C-alpha cells in the first residue's frame, strides 16, 4: 500500500496516502479519508509513573453518559507492533461513531499518546491500524527532528521548538524558536497563479517586507528560482557595545515550478546567520 509520513512535533507514523490531516494542533491530529474520520492522535508528557487505570477513568469520563467506553485486551496483531511501549487498549462508541484505540506510554521520553482508529472494525481496517502502529514513534533517536505534514517536509535541529503555526488555504506558516533565534518557514501555492507573470522578488517584497532590489540570486543550481537576502555586517564597532535587537538577519525564497509552490525561510536573531545554517535548513525544506 502507498504510504506517506506524518511527522509533527516529535510524533512520527505512516498512513495510507489518501488519508489527510483535517485537524491539527500542537499535540493533536485527526486524519480523514473521503470525508470520514479515520484516526485521532493526541499526546502529552507526564512526570510520574504511568497508571493505566487512571487513563481508563479519564477516557471513560470524557466519553460521557451518552457514549460507551470499555477497556479491552491488547489485540495480538498490535502487541508485536507496540513492543517499545506500555500499552492499554480500549473500545469507544458514541452514536454512530465507534473506535478502537490504545493509550501508549514511552519509558524513554515519558510521553503518553492516545491513538484511536474510527470506523467499522473490519479485517482491512485492523491491518491498516497494525501497520500504522508498527511505524509509530514518539521521539527522534538522533539530533534532528523531521516535520512532514500536508505537502511540506523539513528537517530541523532538535532544539528548535514550535512556537506558532498557521495552515490557511494557499498559505502555510510555521515558526520555531531556539534560544533567541526565530525560524519561520512559509509555503504558498499555487505559485503560477500567485506570481501571474510577476517577478519572484516582487512577490518576496510584498510578502516578507524586504525591498525588491535587495534580493540577490541564492547561487547554486537553483539560482534562477531562488533569492536570498542577508543583513549586511555592522561596520561601526561602537554599536556592538549595545545589546543587539532580534531582527530579520537572513531570508531565502524559492520557487518550485514542478510542485507549483513558493517556499521561504526567514531567520530572526540578534546576530548574523551562518551561510551553512541557512543552506542546511533551506536544503531540507521542500514541497512534496
Amino acid at each position, binding site marked *: 500500500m502507498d504510504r506517506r509520513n506524518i511527522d509533527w512535533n516529535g510524533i512520527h507514523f505512516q498512513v495510507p496516502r489518501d488519508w489527510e*490531516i483535517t485537524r491539527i494542533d500542537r499535540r493533536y491530529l485527526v486524519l480523514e479519508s473521503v470525508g470520514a474520520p479515520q484516526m485521532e492522535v493526541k499526546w502529552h508528557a507526564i512526570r510520574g509513573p504511568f497508571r493505566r487505570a487512571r487513563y481508563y477513568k479519564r477516557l471513560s469520563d470524557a466519553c460521557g453518559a451518552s457514549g460507551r467506553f470499555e477497556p479491552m485486551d491488547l489485540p495480538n496483531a498490535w502487541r508485536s507492533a507496540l513492543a517499545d511501549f506500555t500499552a492499554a487498549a480500549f473500545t469507544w462508541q458514541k452514536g454512530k461513531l465507534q473506535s478502537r484505540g490504545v493509550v501508549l506510554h514511552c519509558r524513554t521520553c515519558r510521553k503518553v499518546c492516545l491513538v484511536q482508529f474510527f470506523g467499522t472494525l473490519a479485517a482491512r481496517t485492523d491491518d491498516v491500524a497494525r501497520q500504522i502502529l508498527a511505524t509509530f514513534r514518539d521521539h527522534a533517536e538522533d539530533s534532528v527532528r523531521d516535520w512532514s505534514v500536508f505537502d511540506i517536509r523539513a528537517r530541523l535541529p532538535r532544539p528548535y521548538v514550535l512556537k506558532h503555526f498557521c495552515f490557511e*488555504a494557499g498559505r502555510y506558516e510555521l515558526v520555531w524558536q531556539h534560544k533567541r533565534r526565530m525560524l519561520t518557514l512559509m509555503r504558498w*501555492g499555487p505559485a503560477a497563479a500567485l506570481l501571474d507573470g510577476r517577478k519572484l522578488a516582487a512577490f518576496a517584497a510584498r510578502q516578507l517586507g524586504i525591498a525588491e532590489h535587495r534580493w540577490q540570486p541564492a547561487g547554486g543550481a537553483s539560482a534562477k528560482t531562488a533569492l536570498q537576502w542577508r543583513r549586511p555586517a555592522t561596520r561601526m564597532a561602537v554599536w556592538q557595545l549595545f545589546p543587539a535587537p532580534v531582527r530579520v538577519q537572513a531570508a531565502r525564497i524559492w520557487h518550485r515550478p514542478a510542485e507549483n509552490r513558493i517556499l521561504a525561510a526567514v531567520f530572526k536573531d540578534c546576530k548574523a546567520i551562518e551561510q551553512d545554517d541557512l543552506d542546511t535548513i533551506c536544503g531540507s525544506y521542500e514541497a512534496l
Partner: protein
Amino acid sequence: MKRFKRQPEAAALSREEALNCVPVKSRHIHEERMPSGDALIAYPQQLRPLPRFLLRRLGKKPPAMPPRKLQLDNLGTDVWNLIDDRRSVRRIVKRFAEIHRLPRREAELSVTRFLRELGKRGLVAMKRT
C-alpha cells in the same frame, strides 16, 4: 407575539451533502471579461431592508440602484469558469485541485469559501441533487 416567534432553522447540510450540491449562477448577473482574462461580474444591488421598509410604508417605490461590480482574480475566475450549472462542488474542487496541483483538502477549503462568498452576494445558489 406570534409575529416575533423565531422561525425554525433549516436543517444544516452535512459536509457530504454540501459537496454534492450543484452551484448555479444567478440569471440576474452580467458577466464581462477583462483584457487579462479575469471575470468582471455586474449584479443588481438591492436597497437595504430598513429604507426599503420605510419607503414601502410611505407608499413609494424603491429607486433603481446602479449595479454592483465584482472583479475576480485569476483563481476566482478559474472557479467561476468551472460553474456550469451541472458540475457539483465536489467535481469543481477536484478539477481546481488538478489545474493548480493543490492538495484536495486545500482546494476544497478555498473553493467552498469562495462559493460561500458568491452565495452571500447572491451570485450563485446551491441546487441539491
